[in-house]
């Protein structure tokens, strides 16, 4: 109860400041539109190659994860700015739970991912994507969960490095393999066996596969189960890590 109240206070404060920033709202909502309108047509002719029936049923899940993961990874930059202004220390000196300080911020990030997912899926439907409502809901939920993990990890890195200059190269070195080895844009099955084997070690790839399967309606498939399991595990670990950096005595 106390935890929910404190998280909500932090969440509301974050959201209020974001909503007052028109750039944040406009960029956030046009991103999915641009991806779909500018990137979708490029992939349409290649659909048959992947053995997929419908280009958008295949690409929307990838774009969804891409949006969720990338947006979330950058959340930490805002926290560094807050830390520099003394906001983090001011919150840490109150009796509020350290997890609430993190979860309130995650709530704002998840809402952002959710809003982008709705825009993306609505537009996907308009362009001819075919997905069951249940499959879509589960796919979006998995994405949001994965987004939570990435945000929390990003906050942890932010409070550990406390410097944009240190954090940016770290993010780059994580994002690049994630982008290349998770099959976010192009499915790994296109590549040679060794590449597929390497990508099996990339947890996010399994979540991407799960989202794709659930959009395709294979809800009973093992990839949805594995994807969900990985999403839950990653979120749990990242929230624990993030909370410990808020708790850490020299943050």
């Amino acid at each position, binding site marked *: 109860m106390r935890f929910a109240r404190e998280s909500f206070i932090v969440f509301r404060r974050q959201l209020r400041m974001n909503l007052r920033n028109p750039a944040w709202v406009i960029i956030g909502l046009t991103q999915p539109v641009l991806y779909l309108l500018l990137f979708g047509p490029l992939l349409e002719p290649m659909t048959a190659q992947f053995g997929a029936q419908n280009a958008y049923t295949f690409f929307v899940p990838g774009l969804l994860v891409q949006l969720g993961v990338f947006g979330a990874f950058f959340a930490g930059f805002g926290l560094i700015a807050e830390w520099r*202004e003394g906001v983090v220390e001011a919150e840490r*000196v109150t009796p509020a739970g350290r997890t609430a300080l993190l979860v309130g911020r995650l709530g704002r990030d998840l809402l952002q991912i959710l809003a982008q997912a709705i825009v993306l899926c609505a537009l996907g439907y308009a362009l001819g994507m075919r997905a069951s409502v249940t499959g879509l809901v589960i796919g979006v939920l998995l994405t949001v969960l994965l987004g939570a993990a990435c945000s929390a990890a990003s906050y942890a890195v932010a409070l550990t490095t406390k410097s944009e200059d240190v954090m940016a190269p770290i993010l780059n070195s994580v994002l690049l393999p994630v982008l290349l080895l998770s099959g976010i844009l192009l499915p790994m099955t296109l590549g040679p066996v060794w590449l597929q084997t390497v990508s099996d070690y990339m947890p996010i790839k399994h979540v991407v596969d799960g989202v794709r399967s659930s959009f395709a309606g294979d809800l009973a498939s093992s990839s949805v189960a594995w994807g969900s399991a990985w999403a839950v595990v990653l979120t749990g670990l990242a929230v624990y890590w993030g909370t410990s950096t808020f708790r850490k005595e020299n943050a």
Partner: protein
Amino acid sequence: MITTRSLSQTFRTRRGREMVDVEAVRGVDLHVAEGEIVSFLGPNGAGKTTTLRMLTTLLRPTAGTATVAGHDVLTEAVAVRRSIGYVSQSGSTSSVARAGEEVIDHGMLYGISRAQAEQRGRELFDQLALDGLWDRQPKSMSGGQRRRLDIAMGLIHDPRLIFLDEPTTGLDPQARVNLWQHIADLRDRLGATIFLTTHYLDEADALSDRVIVIDNGRIIADDTPERLKQQVSGDLVDLELADVVQVPLAAKHLEVHGQVDTDGRHVRTRLPHAGAVVPALLRDLEAEGITLSHLEIRRPTLDDVFLTLTGRSLREAA
């Protein structure tokens, strides 16, 4: 209200390639009673902020113990946080939030209701001369206004123990005196205990019941401002002669009272109870034909105390 034993903090930091230990606070013992106003005085880098951050549970001591408001800072951190207010040296609000909302949210994190936080917040804005700035973004406030906003943040939940880290830095003289009044009021009306850091000797002198001087991570003095000043032997008597040639003669006259410093046309010495001794001294000097262009008698200040204790002036050190 505050008791510490051998409280210490050693930072490991990188200097170039090698790791070095910075002993910021070295075995500090503090006792602050309920209802006291205590000034924590020391030059830059003395360890004031580090000590405060340990007492407010923001930083884990590397050695020693601290009990704050009846709770151990390590094992009962949440209980400590509930009882204290903290105004940090470096700000506490986002520049793009709105002042009033920052204060309300901060109060609510202490568990008070929204309505209560707003009422107390508006009261504080009024008392700290921030009226009309409730909806303002801190980035468009002046430095002194932002400082007062930080103070309102720290007081929003009516804590019974308040830590203020250089609260008056950046305030104009009027705002400074206004804040002193406010701090004294918090103690007198609400019975709050106040622990504040400052570089300003006049501030420590005017405001506090007790002054604790820290230098290089160690406490070097802990007493009332009055008694600390008594440690300095006497008032400073500063004679400015009309003619530099007469300086040695004047110095010889003053030497019977103690050590004499000369500097250009100035001759200085310290005299206990100068007010009583100086008239006779002046008559002597006049009889010798020594003419003064200026005379100053200054009661010992905490700056003099610091000089006596460390051999350095607080002004040079800071």
